[in-house]
């Protein structure tokens, strides 16, 4: 590289760092922003702990049950009893509302992924000879204390409230089903299996990664606020009078928000740990994910700054947008699933178009399941691409309207 070019790149980088430092100094002296960026997310984690920190409490509204049906029909019979059991479970109701949402799966590995991601409450195994065993049991008859010769198994995370609820309901329904088929009430043998590495996580643990994303998305408010302030106070004009390009200013803004992201992730993580969050993974990988999320937040902040004229409007609108993105993304609470495509063997839901969905999923896998960066390549890739889209959209529009 020619020496002159090297010096100009260095001076460009220095200028960006000076802008970032100046913005951080201003934010440091803005108490309300500290409340928004640090106290608010940490307070939210505390409230979440109060609400969902106990495993006996919890949501328990959505019982999604995976079913791995290996049963076959017998010659001369129409359909298998395994299929009939699935229909019966799908039709069961509680106060007029469907009790379960049944998702048939093809193999256990696929089911385990869904259970780990808490997309479903339990996996029900219907063994290969289920129809044959029930039929034989009915034909031969037995005493009420006898157990039918089949092994129904239920797999799940015992730390997840939904699994506990599903377990209770399923036992009763299976009992009723078998009783209806054989004509009397046998003693059912259901075996329970837990997903390796689970059993101790609570809904609070499950919610923490989403809350970290929530804290990071509030960076959209600080981004919008500093840009609108530069404009309304006239200092943007002063910067333009100096030989500063729009790109240098926006890069300075991005660097300052990334520095804040570097502080927000450890701060919220530490608060969660102090309140009993059980982390199994690398918080440094989580910080890397946080940096990618900050790109999205800055993008939203830039978009908001294009259309707001006052500091309060900028902060409020961008914070609302950022939080909405978190709430709509399945990061903190389950949202309805609307599949739109399949990519790399994964079903893509509508909320997968939001970077926050992949950020929360990646953080969940890293912090709760101890997965490495390589194991969450899909989530990191999707987060990076979507964050970049948000950032470029914000930068492009800001450049066009205010640059």
């Amino acid at each position, binding site marked *: 590289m020619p020496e002159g070019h090297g010096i100009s790149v260095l*001076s460009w980088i*220095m*200028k960006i760092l*000076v*802008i970032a430092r*100046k913005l951080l*100094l*201003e934010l440091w*002296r*803005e108490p309300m922003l500290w409340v928004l960026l640090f106290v608010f997310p940490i307070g939210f984690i505390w409230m979440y702990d109060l609400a969902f920190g106990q495993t006996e409490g919890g949501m328990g509204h959505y019982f999604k049950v995976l079913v791995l049906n290996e049963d076959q029909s017998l010659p001369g019979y129409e359909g298998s009893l395994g299929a009939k059991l699935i229909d019966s479970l799908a039709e069961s109701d509680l106060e007029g509302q469907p009790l379960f949402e049944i998702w048939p799966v093809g193999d256990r590995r696929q089911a385990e992924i869904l259970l780990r991601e808490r997309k479903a409450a339990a996996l029900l195994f219907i063994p290969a000879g289920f129809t044959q065993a029930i039929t034989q049991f009915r034909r031969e008859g037995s005493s009420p204390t006898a157990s039918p010769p089949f092994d129904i198994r239920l797999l799940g995370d015992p730390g997840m409230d939904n699994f506990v609820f599903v377990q209770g309901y399923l036992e009763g329904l299976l009992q009723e089903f078998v009783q209806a088929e054989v004509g009397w009430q046998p003693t059912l043998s259901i075996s329970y299996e837990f997903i390796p590495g689970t059993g101790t996580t609570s809904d609070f643990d499950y919610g923490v990664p989403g809350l970290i994303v929530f804290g990071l998305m509030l960076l959209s408010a600080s981004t919008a606020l500093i840009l609108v302030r530069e404009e309304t*106070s*006239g*200092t943007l*004009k*002063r*910067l*333009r*009078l*100096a*030989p*500063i*390009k729009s790109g240098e200013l926006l890069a300075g803004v991005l660097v300052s928000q990334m520095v804040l992201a570097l502080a927000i992730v450890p701060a919220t993580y530490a608060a969660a740990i102090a309140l009993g969050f059980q982390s199994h993974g690398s918080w440094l990988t989580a910080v890397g994910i946080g940096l990618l999320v900050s790109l999205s937040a800055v993008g939203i902040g830039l978009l908001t700054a294009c259309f707001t004229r006052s500091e309060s409007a900028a902060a409020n609108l961008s914070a609302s947008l950022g939080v909405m993105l978190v709430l709509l993304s399945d990061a903190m609470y389950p949202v309805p699933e609307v599949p739109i495509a399949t990519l790399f063997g994964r079903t893509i839901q509508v909320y997968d178009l939001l970077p926050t969905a992949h950020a929360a999923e990646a953080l969940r896998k890293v912090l709760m399941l101890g997965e490495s960066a390589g194991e969450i390549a899909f989530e990191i890739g999707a987060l990076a691409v979507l964050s970049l889209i948000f950032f470029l959209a914000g930068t492009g529009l800001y450049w066009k309207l205010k640059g």
Partner: protein
Amino acid sequence: MPDVVLRTQDLTKRFGDLVAVSDLSLEVYEGEVFGFLGPNGAGKTTSINMICGLIKPDAGSVWLLGQLLQGGDQGLRKNVGVCPQEIVLWERLTCLEQLIFMGQMYGLSASRASASARRLLEVLELTDKAKVQARKLSGGMQRRLNLAMALVHDPQIVVLDEPDAGLDPQSRVRVREYIHSLARVKTVILTTQNMDEAERLADRVGIIDHGKLLVLDTPQALKARLGEGDVLEVELTGEALDAGRLKASLQDQLGRREMQVGIDLQRHLVSVRGLNAISALAPIQAVIRENGMSVGEVRLRQNSLEDVFIHLTGRSMRE
């Protein structure tokens, strides 16, 4: 002949139907203090914004230091320091922090920017406020800091857009002294509505109104255009003023003396301009009394740029 550091040629800017600046052509010389005078809305700030490259002219060109200024001339703009009319500061940065920041934005190293900032704070008597955030400064101090922000990178040309606006008397004197100290060291372009200030500070003055440059010359030459002599101002007191009758009587009385007579109804003032104007005081007093009024305060002064403006536009700067 000194070098031309700034030249504008037929500079024009329209905002919808309003022609804010029309065919502005002027030259500013190295080391001079150039006063750009005009009332509110005359087109001064729009002209300055075009000269600094902040807004794009609809027509015409600007040459800075002999080079045509185009949209992305970042390097060329380093030679200009602008003090905007309004106070433009980062409220939560200290005086020193923002001066160093601006210096670095203009490409100075941190140490050079710091040295320059400290020197300016001393000159503008803000040293004891170096570590105070801008929002905690008084209005006058903020104005002085605003001025320092234009100078921290040691530009060749300094544009001061109404630097005395809103200043307390103490700060006004300090700023005036400082601008005076810049003369010959830097080229200063000063826009103001304050004719006295311009007369005191500027080597040459351009008067602009309704977007058009009316005249451009030294203050002495402009005043000389009004003719030799002094201005006698007589304040009127009393009831019912018939301005037309009074003026006719005064002109009749003073006609042979080759004096110009003016009546300012708002200020209740009769002004007479001409050689040995004081000799007209007795006849004026007589005419005033004949018209049923009394004489209040009497002042004798020299021609001013305000008189030049009234002569050119038929109205006062404050109207």
